[in-house]
């Protein structure tokens, strides 16, 4: 017997996948195949346009949470945490695999379409430097030991006409056009169309009404139907440069996985997913390399590991009135 035959016979020649494993793999393939059917003419990639959600408060309005509750009128019911053995990839190693697990998990949620007069409620904890530090270095890294989480609460009516926020314990409600103020809001009629990665790509180039929030921002700042969230995750999975940040992240006691792209060569802009449930639980921007920025207003030094932004998504749900929390 030669060495090739010995190798062949010595190492588990009859190893076979479990029926469940084969089924999962077949479903993953089927899922990859299915969206192809609804593919429209591939749009040319155009320059990306980012419109902030609203002026002022909106920049701080970052976002929402994954486990949603429900009101009779609309919203999602929380999915039970997916059993580890149920997700498509048991031990995901790539950003694409983690995002597929996230898409699969979110698809387990139940959803009732909201009425136009209901509100998206988004509650986040945003890490910020003390006011004096922010005034001195508005774009500086968060200072360890000094930066603190601040609660941000935002309500946006589904029809985009009313927005509310909590400021120093008081509810502030604004209407489009009040005092001449306007804010951009991706129309609900556009959101509900984003049911495949191809449609998300098309939306980026042809946003309805000319209002476009990046898909990552949509996932974090809007309360979305499960199939829309899943389509966004699958869209992100196909984007070049999406990587897993191997550095461990602990967000509010939850071990998290950071997925994102490096921008400007040294900053990693990441979405954070719960390691066990694959729920989207936050976002952050962190330096992944040392960097020196020389500008007219001075030279700044960034060190690998410096954290520039960290947001925890606390709650994301549909409510009836501004001020309602569930």
């Amino acid at each position, binding site marked *: 017997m030669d060495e090739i035959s*010995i190798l062949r016979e010595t190492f588990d020649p009859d190893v076979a996948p479990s029926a469940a494993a084969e089924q999962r793999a077949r479903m993953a393939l089927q899922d990859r195949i299915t969206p192809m059917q609804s593919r429209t003419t591939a749009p040319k990639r155009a320059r990306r346009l980012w419109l902030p959600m609203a002026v002022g408060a909106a920049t701080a309005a970052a976002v929402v949470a994954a486990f949603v509750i429900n009101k009779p009128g609309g919203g999602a019911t929380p999915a039970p945490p997916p059993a580890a053995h149920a997700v498509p990839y048991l031990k995901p*190693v790539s950003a694409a695999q983690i995002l597929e697990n996230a898409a699969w998990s979110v698809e387990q949620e139940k959803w009732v379409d909201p009425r136009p007069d209901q509100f998206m409620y988004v509650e986040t904890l945003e890490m910020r430097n003390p006011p004096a530090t922010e005034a001195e270095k508005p774009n500086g890294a968060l200072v360890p030991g000094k930066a603190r989480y601040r609660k941000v609460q935002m309500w946006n009516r589904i029809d985009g006409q009313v927005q509310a926020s909590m400021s120093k314990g008081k509810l502030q409600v604004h209407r489009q056009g009040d005092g001449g103020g306007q804010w951009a809001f991706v129309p609900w009629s556009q959101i509900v169309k984003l049911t495949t990665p191809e449609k998300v790509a098309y939306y980026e180039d042809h946003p309805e009404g000319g209002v476009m929030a990046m898909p990552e921002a949509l996932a974090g700042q809007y309360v979305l139907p499960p199939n829309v969230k899943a389509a966004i995750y699958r869209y992100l999975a196909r984007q070049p440069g999406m990587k897993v940040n191997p550095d461990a992240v602990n967000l509010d006691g939850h071990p998290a996985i950071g997925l994102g792209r490096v921008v400007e060569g040294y900053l990693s802009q990441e979405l954070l997913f719960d390691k066990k449930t694959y729920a989207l639980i936050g976002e952050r921007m962190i330096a992944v390399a040392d960097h020196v920025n020389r500008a007219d207003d001075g030279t700044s030094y960034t060190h690998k590991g410096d954290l520039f932004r960290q947001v925890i998504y606390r709650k994301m749900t549909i409510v009836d009135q501004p001020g309602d929390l569930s």
Partner: protein
Amino acid sequence: MVTQPSAAGLLTDAQLIERARRTPEHFTAIFDRHYRNIYAYVARRLGPDLAEDVASETFLTAFDRRHSYDLARGDARPWLYGIASNLVARHVRAESRRYRALARAGGQESGTADGHADAVAGRLDAAAVKGRLAEALRRLPEPVRAVLLLVAWAGLNQQETAEALGIPAGTARSRLHRARLEMRQALGAEIEMDE
């Protein structure tokens, strides 16, 4: 739409892939034909847990690349094993750990041999052989190991192995030669006895 197994059974892999370019569902027939073999190959290299994900990703990658498949090649196995090998190569440390564990297990079992019962001795010899081979596999550079294992575990010939890995046939031949020598050295006396 569901691919009809009876119809798929009459078609070559290349014909199915050609059809899948127009009607993607045909690609499931490629999955049904080759998934288990791809899984077995990957599982022997990485173990069952990682094999599940890597085998699955092999077919997703293949599906995405179906338009670049050379339709002159009727048999898709070299193409699929090539994709699987490239994905396995991303887990080189996990593969190395697996061989190290197998080598350790083989060493421990062989150390307990008492030589009294033929059946026990035979089993322990097999464990020792597996341990030595695992250690030799661990020491091989990944590109050399890939050639050897595509031949030994995937059942490809040298030409198919070269196609799978996108390397010249001469390179595949020299890597296989080197790998076989290493395996022979690891096996030492056993192979001489059998011969």
